[in-house]
């Protein structure tokens, strides 16, 4: 039986996050990042959006996207720093920093989506 390791889980989360990012991010980023600000499409009104976001399913889905996408980022960026800048000696620090960001982000997301909203 494989030894208890975290790396496999980090990788699973990375992969799941990759899928989430690929499926959800393009359209959301296009709408909120370009189409609405540039006025190609008129942005939804505040009540409409609040309504949509408050729906429990939206909250859960968005939370999932955020957490997994952050873990995806953490995993990938960690290796990019590690290999790209050859910072093998700093593996621990890099890992802590990347995953630290992801965890902070996830906590923020949970707070915003579950409690604050």
């Amino acid at each position, binding site marked *: 039986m494989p030894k208890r390791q975290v790396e496999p889980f980090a990788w699973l989360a990375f992969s799941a*996050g*990759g*899928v989430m*990012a*690929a*499926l*959800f*991010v*393009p*359209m*959301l*980023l*296009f*709408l*909120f*990042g*370009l189409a*609405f*600000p*540039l006025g190609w*499409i008129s*942005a*939804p009104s*505040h*009540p409409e*959006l*609040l309504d*949509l*976001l408050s729906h429990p399913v939206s909250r859960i889905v*968005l939370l999932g*996207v*955020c957490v997994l*996408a*952050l873990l*995806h*980022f953490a*995993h*990938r*960026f960690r*290796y*990019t720093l590690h290999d*790209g*800048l*050859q910072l093998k000696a700093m593996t621990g620090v890099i890992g802590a920093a990347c995953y630290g*960001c992801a965890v902070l*982000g996830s906590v*923020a*997301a949970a707070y*915003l*989506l579950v409690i*604050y*909203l």
Partner: protein
Amino acid sequence: MTGVPARPRGYRQQPSLWWWMHKRSYTLFILRELSSVFVAWFVLFLLLLVYAVAGGAERYQSFLDSAANPVVIGLNAVALAFVCLHVVTWFNLTPQAMPVRVRGRRVPSAVIVGSEYLALAIVSAFVAWLVVG
């Protein structure tokens, strides 16, 4: 198997810090990996949006205004480009990493990739419909 006495180590070239510039494919690889930064940026952007919406109509409006700032638009345009790179590379590699079998036969890669794009189209259409329609 046990080894024979160690040989004198030969000449070892130190890998260059700029190795990812040496080959087009390496550069593309690094760009692909850097797409993750923009994914993280998107999450931040999204959370700011949620924060704004939760804070009332006014805060929402000021979010929309700052999103229209040319710098932010530029950033988001770049981010979208990187996210697209992520989508293309991710989908292309899926069949290599996860061969799918249906009734003992290997599903051709094109079919797997095709259905991934189909899924992307459906999700995107649904999201657009929810948000805009």
